[in-house]
Structures are given as C-alpha cells and as structure tokens.
C-alpha cells in the first residue's frame, strides 16, 4: 500500500512541477482504493495516458484585466503622465489657504506624505508590471491589479481632490453644473444632503463623489471604498471628490467626520467642478 502511495505522490509531484497541471482528485481517490498493486499500477498508466491537460486557475485566452490599462489611461487623461512617469502635482494654493476648514498640518501631510506615498508605490508597481510583461506572465500582471488600482487610484483621486478645493471658494455653484444639480437632484440643498449623507456613511476608508454618467447625461452621487477609482468602479466621470479616509480630517476633526464634511462645503471650487462637467459632457457627445 505504502509504495503505491509513494509512487502516486511522486508522479503527481513531477506532473505538477513540469506543467502546472491539476491532478484529477477523483481519479486519485480511486487509485488509492485499488486493492492490488499490479492492478493499480496498470490503472495508473492508463490514467496518465488519459490526462486532459488543463491550466489550473488561468483564463483560457490569457488576458490581462482591462482595468490595468484603464487605470493608466485615466491618469494620462487627468495629468498627461505616461505610465510610470508619475510625480506629485503641486497645490495651486498654500497649505494654510483652506483654514479654518482644513488645517495646514493636514494639507501638508496629506499632500507630501500620503499622496506622495501612492505615487512611490504606483511607480514600484509599474516596474513589476514591466518585468511581468517582459516575461509574458499574465498571471503576475493580473496579480498586480490591486496594487495598481490602490496606488493608481490614490494618485488620481488626490490629484482631482486638490483641484476641487480653493481658498475663498465654497458657496453655491453657478453655470452648467448648477443647472445639472437642480435638474438631477431637485435643488442644491438636496444634493448637499445626499452627498454629505453618503460621505459620512462610508464604512471605513473611502471617498464621496459627485460624478457624471455619460450614458444618461446625468450627475449622481456615489461612494467608493479605499482608493477604488470612480470611473472604473461605477462608470461615472469624477467631478467632485471628498476624501473621507481618516487621514483627511482626523488631526482636526477627530472622530467627527460629519463636521469635516460640513466644513468641506466652504472650500469647494465650483469653477473647477463646472469645468470638469462641461468637458465630460462634451466628451460624451452631449
């Protein structure tokens, strides 16, 4: 019995080594139950003959997840950066410009540490992606998707966020975006409540968004977890984002996320939101 088990185990190990083939578990069990050694060796030989080669766990056509390319396409559209050439965009205002709504310490750490961190890790992920491409290792490329979405999303989201804010801004929007908000939410107040409610309710780390749906030519509120990019996740073009990761407010607001969200409405750069809206509408052919 023991020798047969050893033989089977050695054969399976060799097969696995050479080809990554998944051994048919049912057949294995049947062989283990075979009563005579001679018979089991004969059956094993027949079995080996009949093995259907099957790649375990891979998509048959061997495709890279399209979200990888999409992530870099969106970064290029926003920042003009080629894949791998990512740098920290400077703020258009001083770190203390958004006081008292968002304090200077938060702005500085958020920008120079957190956003920079995403950029550093994104570049590292890109290097690994390039190696995997050279080796034509589709599995490795796809395994990098979480890192690319997390760090690429972090880079993209924060880039949009810095432009969404400005000193001496806030208040109510005017122009095309104001019309869209009234049309799709009923009123600015209704939008504010919906956006605030959704942002406060994010469980854990994430973002609240006002986004544009190119298909329906509508604006809508949505939330994303972690750094999941809005467009890839929900199909909405990001117009206005609110970072509700604790690092975005904790030093100043501690656990009172609702107060931070309320204060955010004093710094929204509606001109920028309007610009994004008009560009998105045009790109969608409306």
């Amino acid at each position, binding site marked *: 019995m023991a020798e047969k088990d050893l033989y089977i185990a050695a054969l399976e190990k060799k097969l696995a080594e050479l080809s990554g083939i998944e051994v048919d578990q049912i057949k294995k069990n049947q062989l283990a139950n075979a009563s005579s050694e001679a018979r089991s060796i004969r059956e094993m030989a027949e079995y080996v003959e009949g093995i259907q080669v099957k790649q375990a766990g891979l998509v048959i056509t061997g495709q890279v997840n399209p979200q990888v390319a999409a992530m870099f396409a969106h970064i290029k559209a926003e920042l003009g950066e080629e894949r791998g050439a990512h740098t920290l965009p400077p703020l258009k205002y001083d770190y203390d410009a958004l006081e008292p709504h968002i304090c200077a310490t938060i702005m500085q*750490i958020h920008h120079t*540490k*957190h956003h920079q*961190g995403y950029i550093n890790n994104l570049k590292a992920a890109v290097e690994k992606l390039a190696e995997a491409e050279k080796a034509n290792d589709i599995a490795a490329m796809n395994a990098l998707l*979480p890192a690319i979405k*997390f760090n690429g999303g972090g880079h993209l989201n924060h880039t949009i966020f810095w432009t969404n804010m400005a000193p001496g801004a806030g208040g109510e929007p005017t122009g095309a975006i104001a019309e869209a908000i009234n049309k799709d939410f009923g009123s600015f107040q209704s939008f504010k409540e919906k956006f605030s409610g959704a942002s406060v309710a994010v*469980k*854990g*780390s*994430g973002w609240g968004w006002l986004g544009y749906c190119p298909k329906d030519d509508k604006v809508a509120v949505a939330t994303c*977890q*972690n*750094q999941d990019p809005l467009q890839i996740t929900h199909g909405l073009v990001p117009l206005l984002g609110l970072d509700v*990761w*604790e*690092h975005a407010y*904790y*030093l100043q607001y*501690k*656990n009172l996320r609702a107060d931070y969200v309320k204060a955010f409405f004093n710094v929204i750069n509606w001109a920028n939101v309007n610009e994004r809206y008009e560009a998105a509408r045009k790109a969608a052919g409306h």
Partner: protein
Amino acid sequence: MTCCKQQDESSSAAEEYWNTAAWHSGGVVCWEGIMLLVRAFLPARSLAAAGLWCRQKHTLPDLPYDYGALEPTINAEIMQLHHSKHHQTYVNNLNVAEEKLAEAKEKGDVSTIISLAPALKFNGGGHINHSIFWQNLSPDGGEPEGELLAAINRDFGSVENMKNQLSAQTVAVQGSGWGWLGYNKQKGTLQIATCPNQDPLEATTGLVPLFGIDVWEHAYYLQYKNVRPDYVKAIWNVANWKDITARFNAAK
C-alpha cells in the same frame, strides 16, 4: 414587603438584583420587580428566547487600565478618543441595528432583516474587535511562554518571525482593517490573517482571535501620522501576552 424572598440558594449577584427589585417595587409586587428577580436566576438568552425578557443592550466595556497607561506607545489622547468615542459609537449603532432587527423579525419583514446585515457586521464587528483589543494591550504584558511559545516556534519558527510576518501583513492592509494572530481549531495551529473594516475574524475566517492590531487610522494617526509601520512595530511593547495566552488556552 409582599415580594417573596426566593433567596435560598442565592448568589451575591442574585442578592444584588433582589435589592434592586425591592427598591424598584417599593415593597409591592410588580412586573418589573419579578422580572429583575427572574433575571437573577435565569440566563438572559433563555429568557429572551422565552420572550420574557427584553434584550440587554450592549455596553462599552471599561478599560483595564488608565487612558495614559500605554504611553509612550499609544498616547492618552488616542486611547480616550478610541475608547470613549469610536468604540462607544459602534456600541450605540449596534444597539440601534439590533432594535431594528427585533422589529423586523416581529413583523416578519425579511427584506429589512437582510438589509440590516451590513450594519450588524460593521458595528457588531467593531464592538467585538475593540473589546478584544483593550484586553490584548497592557502596560505590563510579559512575554510568550509555555505552550503558546512552543506553538509560535512550531508554526512560525520563532517569535521574531511571527512578529515580522504579522507586522508586515498588518501594515499592508489597504485602507481600514485589522491584523490578527488567530488560532485554527481544525488544524490546531496558529495562523495570521487580516480583515478589512470591522469584519470580525472568527465569523469571517473561522480563526479564533488571539491578538489583534487595529490599523484604522484613528488608532494611531494623532501620534504616528502616516507612519503606520512605526505604530505596528511599537505596539509589540504593549502586547498583553497573559491575555493572548488565556485566549489560546480557551481556544485549544
């Protein structure tokens, strides 16, 4: 006093409840008085099942030490906010969710029951996780020894290796979550796992939680800012090996 004294085999807890009942009843038999007596003698679960007793609300457990006791590893301001604000909020919201659940169950409203699942997981998990966390920490936690030490050496090679692995995986949590040293009852081994948000370890993975590291930013940001690795490295200074050992012994 017309409430009969059912004190023959009373424990001190029962006596306490009796006294409360007596005060409440003002010496007259009343429903509340009787219920308080009943509660003293019967486990809450069976009472709830019998529909005799309203569900006990969850409460914030006390810390076994002062807010400043874990300095300089975790400062007092963090401990106070973390315990009295964050954990308290999970407790409050868990109670709200359970109220809604009870109502929905009474109405047979399955749709609402299902829709409450995320809130129960989030707030229930938050309550479970933080309750474990406060016990997992101590200004004076000792070192692993005996059977637990042997298990760590067996499953990770050394205590150093285990700490390095758990630290690395915990630092790598994307967004909010926890790193855990857990016990795999099926295999009888120690195992490391991470969970996102407040997902509770045992319900999610089946592992019994032994030691958890909270890496939600609120757990460290005021002191360590963005440098999560420094916090995770430092927390080993206040790991309460006595508590971890007790959990390990109970799980085996």
